[in-house]
């Protein structure tokens, strides 16, 4: 189709109501500035204060989100249709903020021990979270790109945060270079979609696609390129190659944050763009998403089998989990359970994966990461509660009931079967059975007695903050696995009020 003439929008200032709708992002963005300034006055020994301030900003932003959840009602678009103010964005925001809060709590102890306690750490976490939240609410291709850059640049710095460690530097460089490529793909795809539809705003793109009868190959190329850009952020196969190296090289607290929050944000925008903006061309992108989902489940789970580093194993497991989540996108857009499944899975994945990484972070010894399988051996004898919590997280990742991971898988599989794509569910089932092997292998290791001649890893003592995070994630994993309806009904409400469809 030809690009239509773009109507010139008269330049008016957005209303105060629009500004209020962005309150969660504004609080966090403000927190970023305040923390940068505070870093100048807080003495180096007292950097834990910065963590406390960051936590306060996150808590305030979370409060604003809760208010927004009720205030947004059935959802409306802000800033002339660029930003969505709906329950969907608020759901994702809540998951992101809880993840960020948990990471901020476990960070000071870990950073101190590793000698990395610099003030900008917390500011960067807030900046990245702001970008992710914007991404969750983005309703314009421009906002999507800006938000992705905001979160990416913050994460590039964070992954190279261990300044004197080569592996961390390598991770940052790898992430930066490949991330740059991915941004290029994304931008190119956006340009093509804009060229075809004449709009950058999702609402108008959706409307334009709905009325058009023939599908231009260039439009499809644009859709695919956008998918590639987002798939890179979500670490889906075959755009996953950076993941193990970056996860392993980055400081563990950063990996904790990155492995969860980036994926949540990437899937949030992927659902909004693909399931709700491009449903008219679903028949054309379905096959690719389908194949990527299967490839991620296969490659992630099989590669994880042979790992001997916990962080790399969790990286590959994260790739596989992304494949499962993608099932919810690959099913028919007319199936609401797909989106609900994605939301539930993201919440479940967030608590579980943060829990698993938090164990590695909290137990890390002075100056070195707890990374190899051998380091976990015999943990149950010395730290029975931590080992039990880790065992629970591994079981949840493996999808055992009654844990969060089971219901994440259950809902996406149910969506696949409901929309007639049983083969996707079958692939998911087959790879899940494989995954049980490597998750349980690590769990088994913790309960093995260390060999007599083997030097024991010097685990750290868990601090109050670390214990609190482990307790919270354990409780979350069980609550999401038993009292399912709490989050399920929220996810269903979020799906029901999802822009651009809900606004019509």
């Amino acid at each position, binding site marked *: 189709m030809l690009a239509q003439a773009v109507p010139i929008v008269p330049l008016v200032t957005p209303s105060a109501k629009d500004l209020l709708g962005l309150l969660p992002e504004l609080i966090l963005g403000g927190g970023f500035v305040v923390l940068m300034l505070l870093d100048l006055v807080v003495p180096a020994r007292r950097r834990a204060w910065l963590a406390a301030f960051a936590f306060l900003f996150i808590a305030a932003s979370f409060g604003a989100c809760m208010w927004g959840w009720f205030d947004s009602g059935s959802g409306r678009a802000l800033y002339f249709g660029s930003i969505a103010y709906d329950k969907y964005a608020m759901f994702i925001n809540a998951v992101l903020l809880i993840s960020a809060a948990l990471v901020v709590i476990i960070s000071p102890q870990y950073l101190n021990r590793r000698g990395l306690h610099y003030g900008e750490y917390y500011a960067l976490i807030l900046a990245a979270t702001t970008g992710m939240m914007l991404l969750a609410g983005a309703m314009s291709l421009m906002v999507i790109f800006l938000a992705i850059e905001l979160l990416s640049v913050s994460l590039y710095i964070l992954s190279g945060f261990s300044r004197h460690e080569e592996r961390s530097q390598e991770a940052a460089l790898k992430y930066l270079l490949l991330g740059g490529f991915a941004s290029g793909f994304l931008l190119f795809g956006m340009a093509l979609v804009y060229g075809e539809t004449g709009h950058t705003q999702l609402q108008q793109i959706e409307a334009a696609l709905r009325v058009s009868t023939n599908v231009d190959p260039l439009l499809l190329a644009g859709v695919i390129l956008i998918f590639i850009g987002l798939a890179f952020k979500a670490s889906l196969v075959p755009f996953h190659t950076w993941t193990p190296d970056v996860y392993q090289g980055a400081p563990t607290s950063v990996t904790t944050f990155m492995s969860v929050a980036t994926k949540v944000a990437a899937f949030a925008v992927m659902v909004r763009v693909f399931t709700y903006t491009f449903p008219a061309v679903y028949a054309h992108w379905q096959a690719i998403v389908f194949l990527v989902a299967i490839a991620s489940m296969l490659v992630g789970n099989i590669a994880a089998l042979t790992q001997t580093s916990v962080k790399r194993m969790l990286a590959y497991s994260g790739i596989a989990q992304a494949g499962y989540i993608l099932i919810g996108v690959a099913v028919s857009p007319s199936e609401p359970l797909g989106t609900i499944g994605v939301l539930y899975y993201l919440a479940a994945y967030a608590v579980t994966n943060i829990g698993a990484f938090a164990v590695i972070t909290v137990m890390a010894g002075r100056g070195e990461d707890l990374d190899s399988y051998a380091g976990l051996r015999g943990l149950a004898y010395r730290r029975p509660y931590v080992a039990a919590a880790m065992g629970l997280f591994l079981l949840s990742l493996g999808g*055992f009931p009654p844990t969060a991971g089971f219901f994440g898988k259950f809902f996406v599989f149910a969506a696949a079967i409901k929309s007639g794509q049983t083969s996707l569910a079958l692939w998911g089932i087959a790879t899940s059975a494989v995954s049980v092997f490597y998750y349980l292998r690590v769990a088994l290791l913790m309960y093995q007695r260390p060999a007599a001649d083997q030097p024991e890893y010097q685990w750290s003592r868990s601090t109050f903050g670390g214990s609190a995070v482990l307790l919270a994630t354990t409780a979350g994993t069980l609550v999401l696995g038993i009292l399912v309806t709490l989050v399920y009904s929220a996810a269903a409400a979020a799906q029901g009020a999802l822009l651009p469809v809900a606004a019509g």
Partner: protein
Amino acid sequence: MNVPWLTLVIVIPVGAALLLQVVPRNLTAAVKGVTLLATAAVAVIVGVLVAMLPHTVGSDQPLTFHYEETHAWIPGIGASYHLGLDGLSAWLLALNAGVFLLGALAVSRRSTERLRFYCTLLLLTEAATAGVLLAADLLLFYLFWEGMLVPLYFLLSNYGGEKRGPATLKFILYTVAGSLLMLLSIIWLYVNSGARSFDLETLITSSGPAQAVIVIPGIHVPTFTPQELVFIGFALAFAIKLPLVPFHTWLPDLYEACPPAALVFFAGIVSKLGAYGFIRFGLTLFPEPVNHFKWFLAGVAVLSIIYGALMALSERDIKRIVAYASISHLGFVALGIFSLTQNGVNGSIIQMINHGIIISALFLIVGFIEARTGTRDRRQIAGLERRMPWLYAFFLVATLAALGMPGMNGFVGEFTIMLGAFQLNWVYAVLAGGGVVLACWYMLRLHQGLMHGPPAALVERVRDIRMGEGLLLAPLAALMIFLGVYPRPVGDLARPAVTQYVARATGTPVLPAVYS
């Protein structure tokens, strides 16, 4: 006041497991006391519930549950917290409470290190298996069914023999593969039933699954209807758990590696759950596929009987002999179910209870012998009769019960199953009868070899079982004799429910029961 008794059966062990976490690890007496108290409390509650269970069935419902509890769980998708007890599950629940009480009694500080962890896992397993037996909602059932593996995994991988690692992994991978297929089938049923509910009764009555002929996209197997494929998903999960040949290979390895105290409840109840699933879900949800496959499935059951018996004959390790004997006996249970006759299914339920009692006793005895002689090779042990007269007596009772001697409980179940098998086809009954003959052979050979003859070198300094150990075996032996001469309590309670199940599965008036 309306007490949620069935919930208590699940909650008491979980609560006790949580309580154990605050009991100091070194206070082994307190740890064991809490465990015993919890399992005993559950046993008392279950005993009263079973004794007071009405023998009536409603004619208007597909199944008749008593003490029902229904609460909304995930209303958005129609999953509910629905528990119920009926004639099918009543005695199994009693067996469950019994074997876990026995398991709690059998554990001791000397035999088990890290007692608190062990007891926690024991209690959690009990809660999960009780949940499996009580759940009347498919999703809830799956939750317990799969959740059961979690404590079992830690139990098996932490305690037990040298080969426990690979054996545990094999068991978990086998069962997980089966259960995941069942999960797919459950979701398929839910999606296609039209009722949008996971409730068993709703799914049975909703017209959806009975008539739905929806081709599953991506799978083009022309010989099976979708409903048959879904049944296969369930059947694989249950066949692996039961286990039926050829899905049995995890069992001998695992039983060999499993600590004897844990085998009491592992062999006692866990393997019965597969058979229970076949009756509760297979017969009710899939009447046509079950009818369609019954010749094949009954054939597999007969194969299990013969194969298990032959393997028991060829083994030298006494633990593996009992494990293969268990496969053979569970083949009888499966044969009874797939005969799809009232006698057969009733016999299966009786056999499940009896087998639970016999196999617990046999494994306890094997454990005592291994602890005293230090070996499990049957050829290195002889003449225990003189050194261990008490053990000899108990072993004799268990042996006779296991080989199906009339007057012992093993006979009742096998006989009733054989009646059912005859009603299906006489060939099956004759072949299964061959299994009984083989059972005589391997059980008597084992008993004679271990007990009679001049004492072997390893047996010279062996002492008889202690009073505590004898008190573990005594109730089991008493039950073997009691249920052998007076089996009515089990049969009577199960029969109304069985009539309902069989009528549903066959869709025809049931054949009159011969046994009464």
